[in-house]
């Protein structure tokens, strides 16, 4: 792997050289991220359609505060060293599944018996899968593991969903919009970051 801007700095130690298996794993994970980016966009579009106008209209600009435990990739993300970016990607992918599950529970009330519910479930599974694959790549490359984040228990999340339903339908729609947007942003960011790890990828 040639040295170029944005390539993996921790490869400088010549005793750690990527094995063909590792390169294949990186390729595979990058391909997965690319596929999930497409699915995440489809999920976002399907979500906004079911909530009705003005969701999904160009220029719709609802409040976008950070969701607890997860914010959008910052403007400075692209300027960080690649290992740090990949760690942040992995952290975001680990935070997304419970959020997607929470949105699915709210949408089960707002849009019962729609395909959206299955898509949200699939999105949570895919985020877990991509996050696990990315963690495996980072571990194989000898990167420092990300800091463990506290995960809300499933029962606590379910009780929280019930409480949240009482807050109103419109705030629930906004929450789902935010989470689906974050999912799309982070999966897309992961694809871009992994692309720099792929031999022959963009500088």
């Amino acid at each position, binding site marked *: 792997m040639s040295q170029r801007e944005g390539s993996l700095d921790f490869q400088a130690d010549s005793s750690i050289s990527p094995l063909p298996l590792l390169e294949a794993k990186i390729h595979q994970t990058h391909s997965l991220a690319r596929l999930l980016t497409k699915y995440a966009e489809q999920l976002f579009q399907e979500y906004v359609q079911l909530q009705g106008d003005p969701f999904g209209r160009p220029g719709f600009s609802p409040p976008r*505060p950070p969701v607890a435990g997860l914010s959008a990739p910052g403007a400075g993300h692209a300027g960080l060293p690649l290992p740090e970016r990949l760690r942040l990607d992995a952290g975001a992918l680990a935070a997304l599944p419970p959020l997607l599950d929470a949105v699915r529970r709210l949408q089960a009330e707002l849009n019962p018996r729609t395909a959206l519910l299955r898509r949200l479930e699939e999105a949570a599974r895919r985020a877990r899968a991509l996050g696990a694959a990315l963690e495996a790549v980072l571990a194989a490359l000898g990167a420092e593991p990300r800091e463990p984040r506290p995960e809300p228990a499933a029962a606590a999340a379910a009780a929280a969903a019930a409480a949240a339903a009482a807050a109103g339908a419109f705030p629930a729609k906004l929450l789902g919009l935010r989470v689906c947007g974050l999912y799309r942003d982070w999966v897309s960011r992961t694809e871009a970051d992994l692309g720099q790890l792929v031999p022959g990828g963009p500088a």
Partner: protein
Amino acid sequence: MPAGRPGPAAQSARRPPPLLPLLLLCVLGAPRGGSGAHTAVISPQDPTLLIGSSLQATCSVRGDPQGPTAEGLYWTLNGRRLPPELSRILNASTLALALANLNGSRQQSGDNLVCHAQDGSILAGSCLYVGLPPEKPFNISCWSKNMKDLTCRWTPGAHGETFLHTNYSLKYKLRWYGQDNTCEEYHTVGPHSCHIPKDLALFTPYEIWVEATNRLGSARSDVLTLDILDVVTTDPPPDVHVSRVGGLEDQLSVRWVSPPALKDFLFQAKYQIRYRVEDSVDWKVVDDVSNQTSCRLAGLKPGTVYFVQVRCNPFGIYGSKKAGIWSEWSHPTAASTPRSERPGPGGGACEPRGGEPSSGPVRRELKQFLGWLKKHAYCSNLSFRLYDQWRAWMQKSHKTRNQDEGILPSGRRGSARGPAR
């Protein structure tokens, strides 16, 4: 924590708060970048209304005194700005809205009524659910496949358009005892259907009904009472074979097997055959093939490909007196009749409905005659087979006579021709 602005959740050793209320507090109450700490509350929140009714709503701004006042606020409904004449300032911080003659909701998640600040930013939202209560579902019909399950279908009242999500629930119970049960597998054969896969009793009637519920009310269908044995259907007959009958140009033989799932119960089963010419869409139906598993189609066109299908009605299962329910048609099977020089008859069947008198009654009478002959005369080797062989012989000798006399298929005489160039 991903990079970017520091999130509100501190990295503390305390147990993290429940996820969703915290998420929603962030969505509703957290300060927007650069806009100050101000939100609003819409009342009523998520109302449910009848089509044609009116709504009085208010948007009350809260937050710091430097924030927006009612003066600059405006409303949108499903993204469309509402005319200012529908709004009225109640006080410095409250803008009222009056909507009349509401239409049904555009989406089942509710119409989005939003209160905006002067700069267009969203201060609050409420979802309106405008629709109709459900009407009584009707026209419930049910069938059991091989006595193992029960599938029911119904028609929603008012053609189903309530503009609100309406939940349909199929309920059933044994007529004289037992508790109400609820069907769980919906949309199996269309949007208003349900499938009960197991644990059904025979020889005792069920009561079945449908309950429809939405935000504006509920409705219940009439109760349908049925015995599983009276609504049995089965699989189409397998192994349908169609073949020629020797050299007979106007006949095809159809054979099939009883549907295996009910093969021990089909004593009184009825079968139906339908057939059509290859390039036609018109099927001819042969009714009441009774409980045979073969049939001979007669009066067909020579040299023609026919498609044939068979279906079964498990009539009389366990003594049921009801009509039974026809299975689906079997997959089409094709065969062709032998070619003929002379034009064949139009078409007939082994038991035609209003078919050609020259075919059905003649053969029936002949059968009766042969049966009588066997009893009363010493003609033990007489049979229908012999009759068919005679017919085939007749057709061949007719063909040979025509060739000798130079008669063309149309019946005209032609001259001998030399070899083709």
